[in-house]
């Protein structure tokens, strides 16, 4: 559990944070405490359940007051928090891999209901065959259902994004659920030093949850989600769409506020750029694969190669304008997917398709390559990074790709 490193903790009364050595899961548990979550529902599956274990300990130690329900399955888990959220409770839930899929019906309706449930998906390969390690297909399965989807790179970012998640999701202009992606093991179970904000500082950032006139209560006897059929469904879907569009600005606002209060989060809420200023081609991806790719970039830069990295922080809403603005500066983009989309165009990964689609209407586009790497939690090592680099560089120099050579699986035994 968290070892608090008391670095002059009480030295100044304006202290806004303390440092602690924690895992990604423990960092999220701290966010649950700081957000004064009312109801959470747990069910065991690795690796996400590290959060539930850490949260249980915080409750047992009297550090937070949360209604902690151990459910009989993920479907129940997500239904329980959905209903608690409708009566005004701030909620937290999560799952991984096949567990996330077991909850799928509840996940779908939560988006439709526009209830701001905050969940983490501790990304894990789907069965069969079994594998514990990270893969993004679990989270990605809900990409069309009206969930906001940030992806964290570090334990610090996990905590920061969680606080952001309640603020943005519960904002009345948005009112959408949030699924934070956390790479299994690499992030969920790796310890790093994390700055944990104080309660006072968080209170300045995160307002109280208020559903307003959508609260389910005898004083406000509304009927939620009656049968609408073809008469009204399209108008209601359109409202979800509008909320998702508004979310971009609300995220920008929250990001700016967060940065003002805590000094973290970088320049752009949606993209994290590494050594891109003079880069001719870049790697593109999300989650913890940024770490080995950054190591590779430093090595390649030392050899004189003008390569950088653009990391996506929010997959939904997809920041199309920011992506276009950023990526048009480069000759080639090597999109690294920790997922698969069997039978899709060019057999590429999900992120690849999104990036390519975002760039399509531009008159002059960089070459976009698809790399499938690190599935099932396989580590992306420096040899793999070099392969990705060489192929991307070649494409940048040539200015095009051969038909049928768009997607490359990296580090696979043949």
């Amino acid at each position, binding site marked *: 559990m968290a070892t608090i490193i008391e670095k002059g903790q009480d030295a100044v009364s304006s202290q806004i944070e303390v440092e602690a050595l924690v895992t990604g899961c423990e960092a999220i548990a701290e966010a649950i405490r700081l957000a004064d979550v*009312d109801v959470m529902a747990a069910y065991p599956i690795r690796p996400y359940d590290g959060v539930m274990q850490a949260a249980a300990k915080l409750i047992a130690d009297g550090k937070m007051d949360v209604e902690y329900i151990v459910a009989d399955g993920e479907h129940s888990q997500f239904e329980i928090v959905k*209903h608690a959220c409708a009566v*005004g409770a701030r909620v937290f839930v999560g799952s991984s891999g096949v567990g996330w899929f077991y909850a799928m019906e509840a996940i779908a309706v939560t988006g439709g209901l526009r209830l701001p449930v905050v969940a983490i998906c501790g990304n894990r390969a789907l069965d069969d065959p079994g594998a514990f390690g990270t893969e993004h297909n679990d989270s990605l399965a809900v990409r069309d259902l009206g969930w906001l989807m940030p992806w964290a790179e570090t334990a610090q970012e996990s905590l920061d994004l969680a606080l952001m998640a309640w603020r943005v999701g519960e904002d009345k202009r948005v009112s959408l659920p949030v699924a934070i992606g956390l790479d299994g093991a690499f992030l969920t179970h790796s310890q790093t030093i994390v700055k944990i904000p104080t309660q006072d500082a968080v209170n300045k950032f995160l307002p109280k949850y208020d559903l307003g006139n959508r609260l389910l209560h*005898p004083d406000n*006897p509304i009927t*939620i989600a*009656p049968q609408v059929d073809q008469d009204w469904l399209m108008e209601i879907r359109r409202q979800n769409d509008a909320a998702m569009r508004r979310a971009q600005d609300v995220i920008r606002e929250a990001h700016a506020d967060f940065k003002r209060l805590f000094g973290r989060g970088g320049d752009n809420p949606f993209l994290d750029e590494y050594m891109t200023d003079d880069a001719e081609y870049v790697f593109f991806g999300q989650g913890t694969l940024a770490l080995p790719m950054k190591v590779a970039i430093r090595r390649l830069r030392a050899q004189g190669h003008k390569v950088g990295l653009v990391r996506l922080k929010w997959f939904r809403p997809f920041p199309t304008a920011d992506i276009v603005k950023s990526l048009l500066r480069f000759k080639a983009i090597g999109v690294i997917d920790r997922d698969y989309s069997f039978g899709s165009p060019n057999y590429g990964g999900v992120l690849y398709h999104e990036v390519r689609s975002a760039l399509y209407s531009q008159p002059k586009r960089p070459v976009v390559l698809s790399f499938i790497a690190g599935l099932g939690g396989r580590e992306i090592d420096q040899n793999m990074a070099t392969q990705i680099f060489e192929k991307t560089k070649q494409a940048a120099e040539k200015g095009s790709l051969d038909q049928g050579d768009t997607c490359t699986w990296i580090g696979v035994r043949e």
Partner: protein
Amino acid sequence: MAVAATPNATLPQIKGVKDVPYDELFVSGHRTCQGCESALVMRHMIKAAGPRTIVLGSTGCMYVANTTYYTTPWVVPWMHTQLGAAGSAALGTSAGLKVLMRKGKLPNEKINVIAFCGDGGGADMGLGAISATLTHKEYNSLILLYDNESYANTDIQLSSMTPYGAITTFSPTGKAKRLMHTRWKKNVPGMLAAGHPESRYIAAACAGYAVDLMNKIRRALEVGGPTFIHTIDPCPKGWDYHPQYSQELGHLAVETGIWPLYEVFDNKLNLTGPTRQIAEGRKKRKPVVEYLKRQGRFAHFTDEDVDHFQGEVDKMWEKWLIPGVIPFTIAEKDRALLRVDTTPLHEVKKPA
């Protein structure tokens, strides 16, 4: 917009029809079939519970036919829940209210939470979640399973609550097979009562006995913790009879002994209505054929089918450890271990 209410009102037992609350909290606006007994269950349920109630409704006829956008019949707050989620809806709503009141984020008052589901939603898909909720004794809620004995809303398919031999769209009669469905109906309230010793109230009811039903609803809401009521609801469309006979068929289900009325209150069984009279020997069980022959879904039954049906119901009354409730019994040599008198109920002398 607030519904006129007396916060923290208690729910006393109703003494007779004249004592039934006048206010209707389930009004026009729904489009259930004529003679739909399940809609009547809804009406009685919320009449008994009163305005300070939140209702969660699973997918099924009582959602699709009952709750249309812009014409909701619900005067109380109402929310849809998924087909297998009645248990979780009750639990989540109740947990939310509890913690918000504890933390002072909502005014402290007693708000009833009722989640209803059909037989498909409750006895098949959502049984696990209901079972889980019945173990969470710190959360107050009532789960009401309205049993029209089929997946009615999707066009009458058989569920684990469809009676033996009944025709449904998944169990038609044909040239090669007369009976497509030969499973015996699950004993849900008995199973839940036996398996959830910390639930303080589990009951079987029928809207044909309205006051009995309303009192069961009230008791379930008053005792606290998670509770469960199962109603048998004649369904003109699924059972294939004229809508005017719904009440009568409900009565026949009870009078033939097919559907015993009872409650398990603080782990004590109490038979109610005609079921008690039958058990005490004050009333004779009617033959099941009187019930079966009134419904098109049994029109294909031969005499052997009727006999088989009657035989199974007879076993419920003569062989089960507790008639209609606990199906297994105990070996003769172990009788001494039993804490109750095992004389079959129909042989028990009427109390003086």
